[in-house]
């Protein structure tokens, strides 16, 4: 390469790299909006419609939408919101360690006034609004409104009806029926439960088992620090020992320690295991992709992991807060909420007309029953930042036999205590 050519190449490269950098300064006629839901998901479908409606009702305003990656937003939210490149409105994860942390760091707008003015609080029932409010310690359930959820999610029991019929089993609606069904399959040489130990599912099951013995007060102590948490009380011990028992009895495989969530879902959809205990986020996909057998889902007997979905939050630095509030208002409207429902999601404020699709109706009715019974218990990893990794790791060790159920509880307790010492710092 000759010298001149090289110099030219470098100059060209820098010219290209230099342009197309940051956005032009914020524009009062542009709403910069980020979310990380796939275009085919219930939320993706509903929000695309909301954007259309927003542009129709706000002539001259353009929505500049960017689809983001979940990981990217999780890792960089505080950096982005601290810079001039922050969007006007974005979807963000709910819970103390996520939205709570951002609110504590002063990066989010307090929506209290808008909530009162537009009546959003009326639309969000108890248990759903918990994740929208954070106090000055960044703990959910009280304090100021920092986010508005559009949808909800919960963990349930998916089962393969075809296989259940073959064994002469009915729907597993109680804990005893569920255990009996699994026992029958195990004796017949089928591993009944699809489970993933490399990611969230196994840790969630561990918590689900404890929840069968839990009440609201127990959940609040654990999730909202309203009182001392004893990880060796009857509730936790029941959960841990039952988990160990299920493993011993072969209700789920020792191999699941290394299985990812995706592979768990696939093994259920391929009919390899008759039962899967996981969240409503699978519902649409199971519905679309299972062709070879009949399936159904029933709520978990007792309290269950579940909460509002992710939140719309408005960054402190948003230049177009009014437009952002208008957009949230549209997403809360009955038309969009119904659209979300009909696309397979669980809306928080649907209209009075029930869904036409029987499965969708069932999903939403089951959810309504959970809300009415105050049975939503959030997720096990919420109380402490990084708790997720610690839980996955402890539960994995139980599955692989490195530690016993009680030792796992001790590990969880240690992590939990270490964190609660610094709550509000």
């Amino acid at each position, binding site marked *: 390469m000759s010298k001149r050519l090289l110099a030219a190449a470098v100059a060209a490269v820098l010219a290209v790299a230099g342009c197309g950098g940051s956005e032009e300064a914020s524009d009062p006629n542009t709403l910069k909006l980020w979310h990380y839901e796939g275009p085919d998901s219930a939320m993706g479908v509903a929000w695309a419609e909301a954007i259309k409606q927003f542009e129709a009702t706000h002539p001259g305003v353009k929505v500049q939408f960017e689809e983001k990656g979940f990981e990217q937003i999780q890792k960089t939210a505080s950096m982005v919101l601290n810079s001039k490149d922050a969007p006007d409105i974005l979807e963000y994860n709910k819970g103390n360690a996520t939205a709570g942390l951002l609110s504590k760091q002063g990066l989010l707008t307090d929506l209290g006034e808008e909530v009162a003015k537009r009546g959003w609080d009326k639309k969000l029932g108890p248990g759903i609004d918990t994740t929208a409010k954070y106090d000055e310690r960044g703990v959910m359930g009280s304090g100021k409104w920092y986010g508005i959820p559009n949808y909800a999610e919960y963990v349930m029991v998916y089962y393969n009806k075809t296989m259940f019929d073959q064994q002469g089993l009915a729907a597993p609606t109680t804990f005893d029926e569920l255990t009996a069904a699994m026992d029958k399959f195990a004796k017949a040489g089928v591993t009944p439960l699809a489970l993933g130990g490399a990611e969230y599912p196994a840790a969630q099951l561990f918590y689900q088992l404890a929840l069968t013995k839990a009440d609201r007060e127990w959940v609040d102590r654990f999730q909202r620090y309203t009182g001392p948490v004893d990880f060796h009380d009857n509730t936790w011990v029941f959960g841990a020992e039952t988990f160990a028992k299920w493993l011993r009895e072969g209700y789920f495989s*020792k191999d699941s320690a290394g299985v990812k969530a995706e592979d768990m879902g696939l093994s259920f959809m391929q009919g390899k295991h008759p039962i899967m205990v996981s969240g409503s986020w699978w519902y649409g996909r199971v519905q679309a992709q299972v062709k070879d057998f009949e399936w159904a889902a029933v709520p978990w007997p007792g309290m269950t992991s579940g909460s509002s979905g992710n939140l719309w939050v408005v960054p402190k630095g948003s230049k177009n807060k009014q437009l952002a509030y208008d957009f949230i208002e549209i997403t809360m409207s009955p038309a969009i909420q119904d659209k979300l429902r009909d696309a397979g999601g669980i809306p928080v404020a649907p209209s009075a007309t029930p869904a036409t699709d029987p499965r969708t109706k069932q999903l939403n009715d089951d959810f309504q029953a959970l809300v009415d019974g105050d049975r939503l218990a959030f997720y096990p990893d919420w109380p402490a*930042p990084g708790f997720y990794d610690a839980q996955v790791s402890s539960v994995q060790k139980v599955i692989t036999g490195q530690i016993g159920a009680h030792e796992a509880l001790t590990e969880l307790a240690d992590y939990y205590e270490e964190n609660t010492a610094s709550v509000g710092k």
Partner: protein
Amino acid sequence: MSLVPASIRDRGSYLLFLIPGGLLLLAVILVPFAMNVGISLTEWSGAGTPEWVGLDNYTRLMSDGTFWASFRHNVGLVVAMAILPTLAGLVIAAALFDFIGKHFGSRHAAVLRACVYLPQVLPIAVAGIVWSWILAPRDGALNEVLRAVGLDALAQNWLGDPDLALFTVMGVLLWIQVGYPVVIFMAGMGRVDPSLHEAAELDGASWWGRFFHVTVPQIRPEIFVVLLTCTIAALKVFAPIYVLTRGGPGGSTNVPSYYSFQNFFEKTQVGYGAAVATVLTVLILLLTAVFLRVQNRGER
């Protein structure tokens, strides 16, 4: 080298050539590293004001079992990413260059080399997905193949068994890494004077004899480069752990860089994560300095 005339040893103006690189290094690496050391002396959640805690993070590190365990795992990864690829790379490169290249033409050798190098090109996010399919416990490709040939007993839960996971990760890393030394060594072999080989052959040396007495000593600089860069890469290894195991099962494949990442982004204990990263950096630097001294001696 003392035969070099004084004019060439006139060193002053050569320093000018270091200015662009030096300034960039200062802005992008040295200043941020100093900032990182600063952060490691505080307690900080990544936003807001850091709180000065002095050496607290470091004293905590000293008694942190997870941290030391992660270093032990890292030793295994150095074997998998530096030592084994170097040995395997030498043999493969020699076989391709000296044997395939001679007997079947250099085109064959180039195609085979491309195949071996390809994993280096694969984005790691993709590699993680593919390998988790292959290594899946029940219906993964590897276990299916083993069962198909009647070796059911060998089918394992590759990434889910705490005693095996680290070795499995080592295997994947070897697959990723081996192409890099092969390319560098083959390039180096191209520079070896063929008359040395002819002389050895006349003396009746076997292929292996020539490999050990001619090829290996002649490409010693390349071997040094590969060993050092691969060791550094192994000590920094992050992405493969992130996509394959996230440090699991039960922390059995955790490594320092992933541990610092966890502290930065999962636990939001940025100060502590910075301390982990600082210790790791200092360690790598010491190792590098020792390495370069040895290499310098070797060159004199």
